[in-house]
C-alpha cells in the first residue's frame, strides 16, 4: 500500500509540473500585452511607463525563467497579484471564491447521485420494460437540455411563479444553512441534471452487466429479496465507471459552473475566471487554472484509491 501511494504521489507531482507549465505557456502566449491591460489607455501613450511596468511584472524575461520564478513562489502559496486589482493576491481571490464553487459542485454531484442511483438501478432491474423506458427518456431529456435552460426554468417556476426562492444572489454558508440553501439549491439542481443523466446511464449499463453474474443468481437462490440483492450485492460492483466519471466531472464542474454562476449572479470561481480572461488579467487566469488543475488531479488520484475500497480485488496489485 505504501508503495502504491508512493508511485501515485510521484505521478501526481509529475502531472502537476506538466499542468502548471502548459497553462503558464498558454497564458504567456495569449496575444496582447499585459502591461497595456494594466495601464489602460494611459500606457499606450507612455512608452516609458509601459517599459517600467513590463520590467516590474517580469515580462521581459524568457518564458522558462518566468515559469521558474512563478513556480518558486507558487509552491509557497504565493500565486502573484492581480494585474488589474493591484495589491489583491490571487491566492486570496481563490480562497474567497472556492467555497462557493466547491459547494455548488458538491451539491450538484450529491443531487445527481441521489436521483441517478435509484433511476439507474430501476432501469437495470426493469430492463426494457416501461420503468426503464421512462427513466431512459427522462435521462435523455435531462442530458439534452443545457443547464442554463434548466436554470431559467427553475427561476421561472420557483422565483417568478411560486415566489419561494430568490432568483439570484448568494448567501454564504456562514450566514446560515437555510439562507444558503435558498440561494444554492436552484443553481446546484440546474448543474445536477446533466450529471444525473450521465450517472444514471452508467449505473444502468453496469448494473445490467452485474445482474448477469452468477453471484446474483446465487444470491437469489439464497432467498434474498430483489431489493437486497440490487442494493447490497449488485450496486457496489456496478459503481466503478460511475466513480471514474464522478471524479472527472467534479473537476469539470469546478471550472464549468461559469454559466450558472453568471445566471444566478453567484460570486464563484468560474465567474471570476471569465472576468479575468476578458480583462487579460494573466496572473488571475494562471492562478485559477492551476488551482482547478491541481484539484482535478488530486480528485482523480483519490478516485483511483477509492477503487480499492470498492473492489477488494484491486487492493492486491
Amino acid at each position, binding site marked *: 500500500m505504501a508503495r502504491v501511494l508512493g508511485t501515485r504521489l510521484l505521478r501526481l507531482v509529475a502531472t502537476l509540473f506538466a499542468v502548471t507549465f502548459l497553462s503558464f505557456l498558454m497564458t504567456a502566449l495569449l496575444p496582447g500585452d499585459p502591461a497595456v491591460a494594466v495601464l489602460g489607455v494611459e500606457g499606450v501613450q507612455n512608452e516609458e511607463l509601459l517599459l517600467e511596468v513590463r520590467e516590474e511584472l517580469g515580462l521581459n524575461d524568457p518564458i522558462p525563467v518566468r515559469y521558474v520564478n512563478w513556480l518558486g513562489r507558487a509552491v509557497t502559496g504565493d500565486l502573484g497579484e492581480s494585474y488589474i486589482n493591484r495589491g489583491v493576491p490571487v491566492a486570496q481571490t481563490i480562497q474567497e471564491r472556492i467555497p462557493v464553487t466547491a459547494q455548488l459542485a458538491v451539491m450538484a454531484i450529491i443531487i445527481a447521485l441521489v436521483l441517478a442511483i435509484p433511476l439507474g438501478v430501476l432501469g437495470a432491474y426493469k430492463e426494457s420494460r416501461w420503468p426503464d423506458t421512462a427513466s431512459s427518456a427522462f435521462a435523455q431529456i435531462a442530458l439534452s437540455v443545457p443547464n442554463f435552460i434548466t436554470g431559467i426554468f427553475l427561476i421561472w417556476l420557483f422565483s417568478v411563479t411560486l415566489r419561494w426562492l430568490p432568483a439570484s444572489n448568494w448567501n454564504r454558508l456562514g450566514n446560515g444553512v437555510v439562507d444558503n440553501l435558498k440561494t444554492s439549491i436552484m443553481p446546484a439542481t440546474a448543474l445536477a441534471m446533466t450529471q444525473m443523466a450521465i450517472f444514471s446511464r452508467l449505473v444502468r449499463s453496469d448494473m445490467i452487466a452485474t445482474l448477469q*453474474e*452468477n*453471484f446474483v*443468481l*446465487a*444470491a*437469489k*437462490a*439464497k*432467498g*434474498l*429479496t430483489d431489493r*437486497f440483492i440490487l442494493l*447490497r*450485492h449488485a450496486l*457496489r*460492483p456496478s459503481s466503478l465507471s460511475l466513480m471514474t466519471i464522478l471524479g472527472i466531472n467534479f473537476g469539470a464542474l469546478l471550472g464549468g459552473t461559469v454559466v450558472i454562476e453568471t445566471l444566478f449572479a453567484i460570486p464563484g470561481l468560474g465567474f471570476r475566471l471569465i472576468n479575468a480572461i476578458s480583462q487579460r488579467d494573466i496572473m488571475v487566469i494562471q492562478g485559477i487554472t492551476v488551482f482547478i488543475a491541481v484539484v482535478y488531479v488530486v480528485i482523480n488520484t483519490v478516485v483511483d484509491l477509492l477503487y480499492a475500497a*470498492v*473492489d*477488494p*480485488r484491486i487492493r*492486491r496489485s
Partner: protein
Amino acid sequence: MASNDLLTVQHLSTTFETPAGSVKAVDDVSLSLKAGSTMGLVGESGSGKTVLSRSIMRLITAGGATTTGSVLYRGEELLTKSSKEMQALWGAEMAMVFQDPMTSLNPVVRIGRQMIEHVQHHLGLSKADAVDAAVSLLRSAQIPEAEARLQAYPHELSGGMRQRVCIAIALACGPNMLFADEPTTALDVTVQHQILNLLAEQQRERNMTMILVTHDLGVVAGRTDEIAVMYAGRIVEKAPTDTLFASMRHPYTEALLRAIPKIDDPKQTKLSAIIGRPPDLINPPSGCAFSPRCPYVQPKCREEAPTLTPGESAGHEFACWNPVGSPEAEQAWQQNLEGGLLQTLAAAGKATATEEGATPVPVAANEAAQ
C-alpha cells in the same frame, strides 16, 4: 405419487424463445425423489440437466423462458407460487450449490456477510448468533481458521475453499432439498473428491434430499441412490444406481460409461469418445434425439421417438427401441457394423473417434455410409 416423496416432477418442460427459434431445453421430464434420497442427474453439456434443476427450483431468470408441467414439493405446487413465496423457500427449504465457485460468490462482499445474510433473513437470528452458526458451519465444511475466513474476500480463498464456503452457505439454513449443479467441474481432481465427500457426508448427516448434477457417471456411481440420464432435454434412462451400472439399457448411457477410462485398461487404449455432438435443440432430429450418434440406430429410430418405459427390474425405465442387451440391439449392431456406420465402427473400436470423427456427422452422411 407415493406419500413419502419429497419432490415429484411431472411433465416438466422449459422452453426458451430465442431469435433463432424456440429451444426446448427440458422436454417432458417426470421424476420423483423420496425424502433423504440422492439422485444423480447425468448428461453432456447442453443436455438440459442444469436447466432442469433450475426449473424445478424456479430459478430460470432469462427472459423468454416458459416452464410448464408440475413440480410438487411436499405436495405443494411450486410452479404457481408467487416469487415472494418462492423467496421464502429458496435458501431456507431448498438450496443450490453452483458449478463455479469462482463466480458464484460476490467478489466485493466478505465471506462472513455472504454466510449470514440469508440466515438472518430466514431464521431471524441476531448477527452474533448468525456469525456463531457460520463459524461452526465452516468448521463442519473442514475450513481451517474459520473465524478468520469470515473477514476474507472470495479472491483470498482457493477454488476448493470457495466451493466449501458455497456448500456451507447452501446448508446454512438447514434446507431439506439440495441441488448440487456440477459442484466439482471447475475444481481440480484432488479437490473434487474432497468436495463430493463433504456433500455426501452432509447429505447423510442432515438426511437431506439431494440432486447431484454432473456430466461424470463416475461421480455419481458411489454417491447416489438413483440415476437419471438426460439427453437433449429428456430423461432417456432412469434406474437405481446399482441397477443402472449392472444392466444399463440405453445406448447413450452405455456410451457415457464407455467414455470413462478404466484403470485396468492396457496402456495404449484410446479414449473412447461419443462421436458427434449433442443435437441442435432448435431443430432437433426427428425420432430419437440420439439416433444420429447411436451405434444401434435403425430406420425406426429416425422416425419415431421412443418414450420412457419400465424395464424388468423395479424402478428401471428407459426410452429406446433397441435397448442394449436385447436381440434387436444385437441385430442392429451387426447390421450397422457391416454397413460401415461410423459411430458403430468407433464404438466397436474399429475406428477411433478422432478430431474429424468428433465433429458432427450429418445424418445424410450416415445414410450414405449405410
